[in-house]
């Protein structure tokens, strides 16, 4: 085949690096993610970690579940019009995650940033399986994900989480409460049943993926001290991590 002035035999492989078969910490940056059900307090903990790392001079980047500018309109449409089935719910969230991985998480890890993610692939593993998707299929779907340096799981009893959520806002959203599964006509009851399933999935993932469990019923300061201690131990040998001048 002829390309410009050159002759080639057979199809030309595109000039792209294969994004597969990654190992933990193969890049200069470090990836810390938080997981847990709604109301576990994980976002609070991550934002405290964020400020602390910045204060220490690290280049820090934050990425949130379901926030890709390319995909979120589609997700919003699907949720608003209730077009999503368990399978398309799973796929559209994986698409969102893929965009954030390709656009920011991966390049920033290569550039030596501390990347912080509020929810990661484990959220999909828990929610999608709770919706009836095949466990192996969902794990395969996220085969392109970079394994995190540390994945914190904020473990909280269901009732504590529900109390916190009801204090903070009016009610539960349709998909958040798993209302698409017809578990119960009452949103609070449906939320309870659905989040119960999600907790079961998280518990199974602790040994499977080596999640780091934080007791989310402890005082915020105590949890944060534990988180910082663990993060520190992973920063020590990260010689290429970008520190601002």
């Amino acid at each position, binding site marked *: 085949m002829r*390309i410009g002035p050159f002759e080639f035999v057979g199809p030309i492989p595109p000039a792209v690096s294969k*994004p597969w078969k990654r190992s933990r910490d193969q890049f200069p940056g470090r990836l810390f993610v938080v997981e847990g059900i709604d109301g576990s307090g994980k976002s609070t903990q991550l934002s405290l970690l964020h400020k602390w790392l910045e204060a220490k001079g690290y280049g820090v980047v934050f990425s949130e579940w379901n926030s890709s500018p390319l995909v979120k309109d589609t997700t919003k449409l699907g949720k608003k019009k209730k077009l999503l089935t*368990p399978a398309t719910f799973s796929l*559209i969230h994986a698409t969102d995650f893929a965009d954030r991985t390709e656009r920011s998480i991966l390049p920033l890890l290569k550039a030596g940033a501390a990347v912080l993610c509020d929810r990661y692939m484990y959220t999909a593993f828990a929610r999608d399986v709770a919706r009836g998707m095949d466990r192996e299929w969902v794990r395969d779907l996220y085969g392109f994900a970079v394994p995190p340096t540390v994945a914190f799981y904020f473990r909280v009893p269901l009732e504590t989480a529900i109390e916190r959520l009801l204090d903070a806002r009016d009610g539960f959203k349709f998909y958040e409460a798993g209302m698409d599964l017809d578990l119960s006509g009452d949103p609070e009851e449906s939320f309870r049943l659905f989040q119960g399933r999600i907790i079961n999935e998280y518990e199974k993932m602790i040994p499977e993926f080596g999640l780091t469990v934080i007791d989310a019923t402890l005082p915020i300061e105590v949890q944060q001290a534990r988180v910082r201690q663990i993060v520190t131990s992973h920063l020590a040998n990260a010689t290429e991590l970008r520190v601002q001048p």
Partner: protein
Amino acid sequence: MRQTYGKLLPAVRMSDLGGKLIVIEGTDGVGRTTQINLLRPWLEELGHAVLDTGMTRSPLAGDGIRRAKEGNNLGRVTQTLFYATDFVDRLENEIVPALRAGFIVLTDRYVYSLMARAMVRGMDPEWVRSIFRVALKPDAVFYLRLGIEKLVPRVVFSRGFDYWESGMDLYPGYDMYDSFRAYQAALLAEFDRLSEEFKFETVDASGEPKKVFAQLKVKVQRVLGTDSSAVSVPMLKAAVGGRSGREISLPCAAEPGPEAVDFGRVEWPVAVAIAHTN
């Protein structure tokens, strides 16, 4: 019973999926759409109810994909998964209900095109296959094949080059012509491999559309057989018209006609029940 490539979807009941799922595959510009536009009225004239569907036609993801493709920042993994979302949305909400109602589903491209595009872009072949394990195995895949030497002029002198069909995201720095050749040749090689793996029936697409159509008609007839399990319109009418004991509801009237039969969206879980005539 109809099968998938290994994984089941919670929203899809596999029982009573009659009908026929016929796939037309091939590279860009090979004449797939032309053939579907010929096949559809022919099948309808024979009394079959037909649904045709194709890439990015899903109400959920179609617009999102089109918007994403207007920009220059649609990544390779993202692209693969966005198309998979579009596919599964159509599978669950169009293809499956139509098969259950005994339609012949003609699909312009299927998972094989998505696999080929992804693999040409360097995606892991295992990963790509794992996603599409949820797809239904079709009754036939007709692979319209045209060598690269004949494909290029056909595209150049009909509709011109398109950024994505030319794989410009893969070969920056080439002009559209060189990029098109390189990209389509890579796709062809991938299709040829998939053809063996998934047992495509190759159709020589180099002749006039009418000649290709004549070949396809014979092959489609073979799929439908004489004891066709695809429900013809008169049979559907008889079924709807009142065999007792079975609750029957159709998402639309199955009148024969030149217009596309619009299934609309079917609420999940799918609330279609129909007497199966096998």
